[in-house]
């Protein structure tokens, strides 16, 4: 019983720790890439929940012209005006398969993974700050 309580406590701490970690990372990276305040974002799933907590981002429910960035996993049913917006993936598959994905942040085996796709960074004329260039592939 004692072990179970300890395990639950540790998991809860880790969960909130990961969310905090992700939000801090988004708040650090995205404003450095997109020089806007707030940054209009269309996000899916968990990413939406996390980004909504920040005042630096304006998370919209429907993807429209104001949106400068898509963050999440599944963007198969997007309106036409959002088809060519840059995508910041939250899993490896979206990062690999989505033609507009220029970067990704996700957890793999409990480790944070940050990647930028050089080709798409150039495609969307994104200027990565120097501290992020080491994550370009």
């Amino acid at each position, binding site marked *: 019983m004692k*072990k179970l309580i300890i*395990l639950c406590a540790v998991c809860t701490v880790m969960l909130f720790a990961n969310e905090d970690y992700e939000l801090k990372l988004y708040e650090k990276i995205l404003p450095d890439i997109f020089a806007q305040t707030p940054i209009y974002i269309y996000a899916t799933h968990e990413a939406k929940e996390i980004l909504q907590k920040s005042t630096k981002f304006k998370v919209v429910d429907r993807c429209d012209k104001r949106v400068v960035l898509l963050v999440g996993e599944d963007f198969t049913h997007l309106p036409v005006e959002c088809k060519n917006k840059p995508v910041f993936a939250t899993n*490896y598959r979206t990062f690999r398969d989505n033609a507009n994905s220029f970067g990704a942040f996700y957890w*793999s*085996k*409990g*480790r*944070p993974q940050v990647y930028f796709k050089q080709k798409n960074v150039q495609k969307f004329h994104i200027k990565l700050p120097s501290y992020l260039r080491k994550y370009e*592939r």
Partner: protein
Amino acid sequence: MKELLNKNMTYVFYIFAALILTGALLIYTLFEKTSVAIRQNNLLSNIEYIDNITTNMSALIQTSTDNHIYEALKKSTALRTNLQKSLELFVTKRYRYVYVVDKEQQNSKDFRFLLDGARDNKAEFLENYTPLNIQKWQEVYSTKKSLYFQNKDVESLWMTYLKPIVIDNKVQAIIAIDFSLSDYNIIVEALKKLHISFISIILFAIFLFFVIAFFSYVDKKRIQKLTRQSQKIRKFNKTLQIKIEEEVEKNRKKDQQLIQQSRLAQMGEMISMIAHQWRQPLSAINSAAIAINFKAQLNKLDAQELIEMSDKISSFSQHLSATIDDFRDFFKPNKEKKQVTYNEIIESVLNIVETSLKNCNITVIKEMHSEIVFNTYANELKQVILNLIQNAQDILLEREISNPTIVIKTEENSLSVSDNGGGVPSEIIEKIFDPYFSTKTEKNGRGLGLYMSKMIIQEHCGGELRVENIGDGAQFTIQLPQEV
């Protein structure tokens, strides 16, 4: 003996305390060693177990891929699936992640997944992977040796074990296992608590030791002080005893002097009284002698008249002789008690003093109501009564009382001498029995009479002498004990 015992007890305490302290330190050292051993053994047994697992995995992968891991896995999805299922078997709550990664190029900084033992969220084949502590992973590539490390940045309750799959002296892939340190941490936490408890107990023991040592020191000092003080007191007592003896001797000598002075004073008074007693018979003898002489010159002295005259002279001489006997008896101290009555004593005293009183026109009234015969030092009692009568006489004369009277009264065991001289002033009535206290300004005022009288009644006769003012004068009462 007691001091020696205390000293020995102090030594025994220090030795005992030192032994306890040494023992506690030894136990603590032993505990520390055991604690480190428990931690290391627990971790090492875990590592050993994981090493065995990864060795088996390595053998399985090598056998299954015919030593061409990447190529074989790339070629066969089924092989990947089978091997991943094998890895899944090792995944438990404790061994959370089991996976195999490699590098596309030996000098490449990126890793990629080859196999993943996760049951869900499985990493894809060749998915990029950037581990934390990447230098450790590079180290495995360069050293070709297994290593383990704790993930301090994230999920610190986990440890990672890396096992290289070396083929042809080249690291083909790395088997990674992330395993939980919760059991280990529980042990470490328990040991930490034990350590804190031990330290607390030892610190408390040390504190207690110092507290006891302090109080022991204070107590020792107190006992030393007490011993010094009792030595001083003993020394002082000795000195005091000597001083008391000296003072007692001085007082005894002083008392003797007082008695001597008092006796001399009384003798003076006695001589005065003898003079009074003798004046009349001497005058009569002188008259008789003058008459004989005168008649002889005139040749008118006949034989009959001469006989009468000589008888008179003889009678007066006998009276003088009797007076001397009376005074001599009076001053002869009694060595033994004898049976007397108050009447006998009073008559004897009045025989001596009556003439003097009569000459001073002082009336003496006797109220004799006691016929008791008692055993006492008669002469000493007589001296006291005489002293009281003389004092009454002195005050009556000094104050020039118009009808001077002295009343001598006896009742049962008591005898009182009172006068109508105005009494003793209240401010001095408490002091009149003190030695050298006198209100008299004349020759006899030495202040010893009443003091000696009180001493005689109290110390020799076992009675009491008190004074009170009654009516127009003072009354001195001698109360002798019943058994007297």
